[in-house]
């Protein structure tokens, strides 16, 4: 820029101060609460330091919640990327420009829905007696009941399918747009070498898109952590604790079952530390 001006200072300093206050105050306060023994039912509290954290390591439900969260991350991130790349490449290969636009518009719809809406839509669809998604099963088996949301072995996958429905289709649009920005020469060269279509994508186009696809995966990893609404509406962590992720367990410890705010906060703080460290490391690696 040609001249010195007060603009950068007046434009960025107030915003940064507000962002810092809005983010640091709750963060620090979360840590302070985690070191106390606050409960919802009373105003009295004292410092118990690390005993909440200590208790967590002997809480089998907490350990289960960690495991469920890890499963959830893997299932949703991998399935989303598979659906996105599969459909993106498919659109690139077989759809005419006009149909591409139609599909792009259709595939953005699910991700725009509030998660609460998406969760309701699919909770109905999975209804064992009246659901539209379980209807084919009833039709084929002559009326047998299939209840994916209340079986511990299928509940997590049934909820995950809704997450993939929302994000996989949306990311397919982005993968298509990325493919469209690639220069056509390498693809034509591969075609002249008689490469099959899948080979072209596996060895030419997708390696060229490695960086943006990794970034997409990074975004999905962050978004997958925000699955509370889906699980809250569809299963409430059940059946049993089969779909109880960390945020679901923290919420029910803090507000539904026992009102142990400090205990819930200790969980949230551990989650925060884990995600900040993991994502900072991943981010530095993605950028490098």
């Amino acid at each position, binding site marked *: 820029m040609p001249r010195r001006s007060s603009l950068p200072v007046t434009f960025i300093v107030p915003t940064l101060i507000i*962002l810092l206050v809005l983010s640091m105050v709750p963060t620090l306060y979360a840590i302070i609460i985690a070191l106390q023994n606050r409960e919802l039912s009373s105003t009295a509290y004292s410092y118990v330091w690390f005993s909440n954290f200590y208790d967590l390591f002997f809480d089998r439900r907490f350990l289960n919640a960690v495991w469920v969260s890890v499963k959830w991350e893997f299932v949703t991130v991998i399935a989303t990327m598979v659906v996105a790349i599969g459909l993106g490449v498919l659109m690139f290969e077989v759809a005419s420009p006009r149909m591409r636009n139609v599909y792009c518009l259709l595939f953005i719809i699910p991700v725009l829905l509030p998660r609460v809406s998406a969760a309701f839509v699919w909770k109905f669809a999975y209804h064992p007696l009246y659901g539209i998604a379980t209807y084919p099963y009833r039709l084929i088996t002559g009326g047998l009941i299939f209840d994916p949301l209340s079986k511990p072995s299928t509940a997590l996958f049934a909820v995950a399918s809704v997450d993939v429905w929302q994000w996989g289709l949306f990311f397919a649009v982005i993968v298509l747009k990325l493919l469209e920005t690639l220069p056509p020469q390498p693809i034509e060269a591969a075609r002249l070498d008689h490469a099959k279509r899948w080979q072209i994508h596996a060895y030419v186009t997708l390696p060229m898109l490695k960086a943006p696809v990794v970034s997409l995966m990074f975004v999905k990893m962050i978004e997958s952590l925000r699955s509370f609404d889906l699980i809250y509406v569809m299963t409430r962590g059940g059946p049993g604790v089969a779909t109880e992720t960390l945020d679901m367990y923290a919420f029910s410890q803090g507000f539904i079952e026992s009102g142990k705010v400090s205990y819930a906060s200790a969980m949230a703080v551990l*989650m925060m530390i884990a995600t900040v460290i993991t994502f900072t490391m991943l981010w530095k690696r993605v950028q490098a």
Partner: protein
Amino acid sequence: MRLGLLIGKTVLAFAGFMAVFPLAWTALNSLKNNVDIITRVPRLVFTPTLANISYIVGRDSVMTGLYNSVIACGVAVLIGVVLGLPAAYSVARYPNRWAGDIQFFVLSLRFLPPVAVAIPLMVIWLQLGLYDTLAALIVTYSLLTISVIMWLAIPAFQAVPKEVEEAAFVDGYGAYSVFWRIALPVAARSLIGAVAFSFVLVWNEFLIALMLSSSNAKTLPIVASELSQQGMNVPWGILNASVVLLSLPPLLFLSVLSGFLNSVFRQNKT
């Protein structure tokens, strides 16, 4: 090869169908009486009724939820625009040695688990006497809207050709009027997309609203989720109608957001 093409097109058509059918089915159910919803075999032909929709629209709790959602999201997005856009412009156009750190800081706000933010905020708002008020929700949502708008607006401002701005400087414009009269209008299309995106995000937000409101400040997603817990006789039709009402505002932005995606990727190409 022709067979492969046919299979590919069929798979795509099926995916397109899957994208909209569940929602369309819900919309259809919102026009049905309960007897037409609770059937072993899904019913396509039925006598439509507006009873569910008029029940939803006539309910105070739903209308209050709608009002709260509109105000909380609207004001938070406005704050996001006022604070986020200028900050994004300054990061994009006046690079300094902290620019990278600022961008990472803004992104890192997305890592914070919502529970970790909501628990302490609940305690803080309770102590300040602001718990269950729209003001508390708006302040909390501003964190979200400012950071999202900044994150998306930085590349949008970077995509504005530098020459245009330099020409304006030569013409004697000051730094502020270059922002107002050149950068904002030129980047407008992408910026509107970014703002719409932040609106959709806060409109769809659930956990923070659930924890920061108990009766007065409940937003529409909370009201909708409560409707489902009315005893044994689930009012399926009403529930479907409330899902449709909740989903409409974000869907209004469908064309804005798809235009936004197109403009983002066109910039990358050139």
